[in-house]
């Protein structure tokens, strides 16, 4: 995975009824915790995983989020919800 992006048709939204972030996909919705939502907002097909990690790290005072980012991207890739923009 070089430059992750959301699969065609997937859309991030804040569900103000349930008060949580969701990834909307064809005929489904994936509930997201706030961190996952932040990661996915950065999965724009332009940034590499490294760049996503460093962007978040800068935002959170140097915290190491590599495992969290990689785990989320891998999990959603296996479900077909994140794809590689470079592929």
């Amino acid at each position, binding site marked *: 995975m070089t430059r992750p992006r959301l699969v*065609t*048709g997937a859309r991030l*939204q804040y569900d103000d*009824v*349930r008060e949580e972030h969701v990834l909307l996909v064809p*005929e489904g919705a994936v509930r997201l915790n706030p961190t996952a939502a932040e990661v996915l907002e950065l999965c724009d097909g332009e940034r590499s995983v490294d760049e996503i990690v460093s962007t978040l790290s800068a935002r959170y005072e140097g915290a190491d989020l590599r495992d969290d980012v990689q785990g989320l991207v891998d999990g959603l890739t*296996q479900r077909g919800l994140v794809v590689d923009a470079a592929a």
Partner: protein
Amino acid sequence: MLQPRPATLIAELSYQCPLHCPYCSNPLDIGHEKYRQELETEHWIRTFREARALGVLQLALTGGEPMLRRDLDELCAGARAAGLYSSLITAGVNFTRERAEALKSAGLDHVQISIQSPDQEDNDRIAGNRSFEKKVAAARVVKELDFPLTINCVLHRQNLDRIEELLDLALDLGAQRVELANTQYYGWAVPNQDALMPSWEQLQRAEQAVQRFREQVGPSVDVLWVLPDFYEDLPKPCMGGWGRTAIVVAPNGDVLPCQAASTIPALEFANVREHPLEWIWNESDAFMRFRGTDWMQEPCRTCPLGRQELDFGGCRCQALRLTGDAAATDPVCRFSPHHERVVAARESAQTDEFVYRAIKRPVRA
């Protein structure tokens, strides 16, 4: 009492359709006067906003053929403004590039095209309309405009043996999802049961083909295989439970817990022209009648497997049709005293002749 939150709104925009599929889930009385009083644009858009406020995220724009609504782009814009993810469920016959572009800019999220068979002649015979080439052309437009594409096919005895060709076609068209839904015996499928009921061997072969395809293609194509419940011995959680996740609005604004609920004669359906959706969901008779588990009779009440909250007693419409009582256990369940009726239906007399869906009166091919 706190009610569950719905996730899906199924908007049946019109029962008009150029196709005549013999398993259509629409009611047999689609020609009834009441369905000609279709909702106005503003009724639908208000309903979308009210649905979102109740918690709905997914909107299925369906029918009949939703493309026959001239205000479809306005409806898509209204859905997007309300915060809904919209899917167009279409036969693909009227899906011109010009209209598709208008839908795209209005905010439509996803397009699902039905295919009746991967073989042109067979597709057109099952659909009762020369439509195969238009469907393929529509799928290409969907991809060109960068919509996610779902191909759906309702499966039955007369197309199950072509499932590998169907999967190959879906792959070739660039489908991201394939919905393979074995026929459920509601609506027009009931008078066509003898023409549709598959054999166990056909189902086994098809399921193996699906499995092979999944292994070969991986996560880039999501294949949904909807089990044929007549070959099960535990019921499905129909609609995810009555009044629990989904709302169906008929073309005239009647609000139903499922597409087939109008077959239950004892139910009264409130209409969005007269009542707020919130009241209909939370308090109306039709949604309260079979919600939760309090309405259950034996053997559901003391289910030996404790499945009351897993399958919600199965399907109410099927219970009514096969036992005469909509509050009975779905006879798909092996604990139902009527289970032998489901077993007997597997041995349907076989015919290739369809009773085609028609607005005025059923016609025989």
